[in-house]
């Protein structure tokens, strides 16, 4: 009997992620619901007690991002209408509060107080005014769970702000959370990316809109393969300090959107993306690595 219970536990452990999610959601929605509600209340009180100026600055930054996005979207629609072009999908965002999870095994994840009812889907990007925070991993009706960029499974298709080099960004974990960095891997071997160069999302892979700041190059990580180089990045956002975020709510169109202008980035158009070859998009989708 005990062996059976142990086997059941092992079965849960080795269950594929897609089958584990409903179990997790069921437990969160029942046994842990009062505790999650309590934490939501605690976070709300904490927010009210935070220095008003600091809070206002963070909210204003987010509001500026949203306002700029709306303005640019409107301008884009108007110009496209003038040129007789089909209207392109624009991303939309929901503001959300971040709720930290203080249990083992949930270090690089956090809860958001928006869910499926707000239009959030698995794979929705999570942004702050400084740049990319992470991606939504699981969605309940009114809450969702996201991973930040320090999570071992985080990947983002990226490019330098000038569009000269493309690659894949992944975390490099330090001994402590504060030591975590990012790395731009898969950059062409002939590329010479100078320290201080901004790295942003490339929009490839259909997860993150193009042009969201990820970090700044601090130096080369390795170049010993003979084929490509890896660069270490100082992240644009420290996840532990984020309290308010914007969550993308149109995941199906996220990859097509371009948010470069919001952060004053003027990357040239992605010529690869204009090539109508399905296999390219598929490869990019796989390259992002992220489960969504």
């Amino acid at each position, binding site marked *: *009997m*005990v062996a059976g*219970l*142990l086997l*059941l*536990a*092992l*079965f*849960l*452990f*080795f*269950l594929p992620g897609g089958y*584990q999610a409903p*179990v*997790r959601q069921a*437990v*969160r929605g029942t*046994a*842990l619901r009062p*505790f*999650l509600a*309590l*934490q939501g209340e*605690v*976070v709300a009180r904490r927010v009210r007690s935070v220095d008003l100026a600091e809070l206002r600055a963070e909210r204003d930054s987010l509001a500026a991002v949203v306002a700029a996005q709306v303005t640019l979207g409107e301008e884009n629609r108007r110009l496209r209408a003038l040129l007789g072009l089909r209207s392109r999908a624009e991303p939309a965002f929901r503001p959300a509060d971040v*709720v*930290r*999870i*203080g*249990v*083992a*095994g*949930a*270090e690089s*994840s956090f809860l958001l107080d928006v869910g499926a009812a707000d239009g959030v889907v698995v794979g929705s990007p999570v942004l702050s005014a400084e740049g990319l925070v992470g991606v939504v*991993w*699981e969605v309940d009706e009114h809450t969702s*769970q996201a*991973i930040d960029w320090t*999570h*071992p*499974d985080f990947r983002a298709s990226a490019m330098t702000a000038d569009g000269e080099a493309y690659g894949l960004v992944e975390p490099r*974990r330090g*001994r*402590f*959370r504060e030591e975590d960095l990012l790395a731009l891997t898969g950059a062409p071997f002939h590329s010479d990316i100078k320290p201080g160069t901004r790295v942003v999302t490339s929009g490839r892979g259909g997860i993150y809109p193009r042009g969201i700041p990820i970090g700044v190059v601090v130096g080369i990580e390795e170049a010993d393969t003979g084929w490509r180089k890896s660069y270490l990045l100082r992240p644009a956002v420290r996840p532990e300090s984020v309290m308010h975020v914007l969550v993308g709510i149109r995941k199906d169109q996220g990859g097509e959107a371009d948010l470069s202008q919001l952060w004053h980035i003027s990357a040239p158009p992605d010529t690869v993306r204009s090539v109508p070859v399905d296999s390219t998009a598929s490869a990019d989708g796989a390259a992002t690595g992220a489960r969504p």
Partner: protein
Amino acid sequence: MIGGRRWPFWTLIALLVVAHFVLHLGLGLGAAAPDLLTVAVLLAARRMRAVAAAAFGLAVGVIRDSLSLTAFGADAVVLTLLAYLGARSRDLFVGDSLIFVGVYLFVGKWLHDALYYLIAGSTLRGDTVVRLFIQAPIAALYAAVAGVAVLTVYRLITGER
């Protein structure tokens, strides 16, 4: 610890479980709060049959695992095993003194962290030596002290010896 009315003890176990989630999840204290869930499983296991203890460990393990995106099931495995070992420890060690309970909780919590690291180590931060021989003993000592303190208060209130 055996004998007399049972409900005060099971109320204590329920309170420990609730307190764990209030501190770790509700208030978001994380490692700043002791692991009362493991303490509850270890204390309960000493009064349960092996099968019931394993089932209890599995249940609370799944609840705690529901917030883990990368190691779901790891704590369920560890707490099932730990609860079983806790129940079987009655065959080897008989005693209810606070010193014995303190040592029992310390060893049990350290074993929990070691097994958890063994199963879910690839998803965790830090190196093995630091985790097993610095972080785990500190967390085990914290849990043991908290467990002994709670048990002392419980015995003062109920008069149980």
